[in-house]
């Protein structure tokens, strides 16, 4: 096998799958969003679907709700993950057990997480009962609405619960890969605890933190299951809105569903592009590079 072609041959199966299934899917979504649906006998290219959804109040409400959920979940979980990774970094008594517990919810499906949060936080849920026992509330309605609520706190709680462990494990792996040497060297040069964290540990973790938050943000922006279990019916999160339009018996709604998909995709793309640019320029500024 000619060495120069080797990497391409090795990549061919994966690229075929991704290009056909994923690339094809995105392309078809785009085509259907501009009204090209030959299987329904429509081939006229039009931007009607985009016009229609941008005029709906439901769409913009969904959009801001989704953005809020994704941003809040990403920010909170990344911060918590940083704290957890630092706490789990060095060995102590029971380290293995606690690390295992921390890994425990990596394989838990979001759907189960959502059910757990529902049973825990609903107004007649486990915590409400504990609050009642403690004499804090007297009836379910006194317990703050955390699920099916306008601020989507329940959804955010589930995302934070799941993704903190995901991000935390990535950060932990990065920390363990880097080791202590650099911090020891910094300490030797006179850096105190805070300075070691600020000028050594944090910069080492930044690339992993950016990657993990990009994954988390994109996931929470586009996920479907958790909002379905824990979200209000109206306004709903964008993916739910798109899916509802897609399965609508009115076939006119289909281009609208596809248009929403395209908009979700573009928005995620733009936001991630901006955030990586920002983090990159910031990193460069720290390093004094251009």
């Amino acid at each position, binding site marked *: 096998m000619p060495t120069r072609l*080797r990497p*391409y041959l*090795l*990549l061919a*199966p*994966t*690229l075929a799958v*991704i290009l056909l299934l*994923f690339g*094809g*899917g995105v*392309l*078809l*979504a*785009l085509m*259907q969003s501009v009204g090209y649906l030959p299987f329904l006998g429509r081939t006229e290219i039009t931007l009607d679907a985009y016009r229609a959804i941008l005029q709906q109040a439901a769409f913009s409400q969904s959009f801001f709700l989704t953005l809020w959920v994704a941003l809040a979940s990403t920010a909170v979980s990344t911060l918590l993950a940083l704290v*957890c990774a630092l*706490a789990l970094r060095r060995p102590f008594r029971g380290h293995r057990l*606690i690390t295992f*517990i*921390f890994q*425990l*919810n*990596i*394989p838990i*499906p979001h*759907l*189960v*997480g959502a*059910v*757990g949060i*529902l*049973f*825990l936080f609903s107004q007649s849920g*486990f915590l409400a009962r504990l609050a009642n*026992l403690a004499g804090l509330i007297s009836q379910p309605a006194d317990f703050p609405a955390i699920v099916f609520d306008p601020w989507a706190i329940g959804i955010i709680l589930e995302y934070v*619960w799941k993704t903190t462990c995901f991000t935390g*494990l*990535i950060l932990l*792996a*990065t920390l*363990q890969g880097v080791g202590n040497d650099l911090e020891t060297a910094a300490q030797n040069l006179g850096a105190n605890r805070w300075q070691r964290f600020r000028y050594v540990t944090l910069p080492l973790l930044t690339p992993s933190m950016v*990657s*993990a938050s990009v*994954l988390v943000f*994109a996931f929470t922006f*586009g996920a479907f*299951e958790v909002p*379905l*279990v824990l979200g209000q019916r109206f306004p709903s999160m964008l*993916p739910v809105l*798109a*899916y509802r339009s897609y399965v609508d018996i009115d076939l006119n709604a289909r281009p609208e*569903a596809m248009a929403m*998909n*395209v908009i*979700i*995709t573009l928005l*995620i*793309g733009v936001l991630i592009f901006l955030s990586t640019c920002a983090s990159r320029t910031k990193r460069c500024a720290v390093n004094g590079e251009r």
Partner: protein
Amino acid sequence: MTRIKQTLQPRTLILAAIVVGVLLPFVPLLLWSVSFRWLYPSVLPESLSLRAWQYVFSPRAEVLSALGYSTLVALLVTALSILIGLPAGRALGLYKFRGKTAVRFLILAPTIVPTLAAAMGIHVLFIRYGLVDNVLGVVLVHLIPVLPYVVLILSGVFANYNPDFEAQAQTLGASAWQRFRHVTLPTIFPALMVAGLFAFIISWSQYILTLLIGGGQVVTLPVLLFSFVSSGDNAITAALSLVFIAPALLFLLATARYLSGNQASLGGFGKL
């Protein structure tokens, strides 16, 4: 004095919070699954019963068939994604070639772009080629979210891989298969297990892609579970949830030691 101080260290508090935070949502799940009557405001179920568990494992509950479908799909997806993704991980980790950045970006795109969007788009083609309402179609559509993670994890291990070990084995007389079996495989084994874990649980957890492409014919556990969540029977929902997480937990038990303390296995995520 020192004792008290030690237990109140910030790190101890953080660790306690981790344990409580991770485990708390499981408490009502466990309690509900064995409850018979559990009305507000009782903190514990008023009467216990195994009704939910009996129902879950009774033949008419479809749980066993859903378990079968879920397992079949997840195992097929895991095997297929590793078969396809292993060479790609090797290429991305080990070689420099033109267009590498673009290829990497393309492969990672499905982790960023919601797979539901792509799946809705491709749905018409799946209908045309008879890939809906059957396991094959579901397996194919699961590859979209699974494959990027598999390639990412495996490219991480191949980035620290020394191909001279294979050359050494070759001059000692090892054939291509023997080199894979006795050199490559043992070296990348931890990462392979982690990749397998991710592939399995991502597929295992899919609800909406399965529903869309499986069209109610391929009823996997999440599809079944969702119908119970909507029905409002908390006890059965809880029992089913626990059944749903059991195999994934077993898989985690088998692979946990490769998840942390090993830079190569998860390190790939840090270099997106």
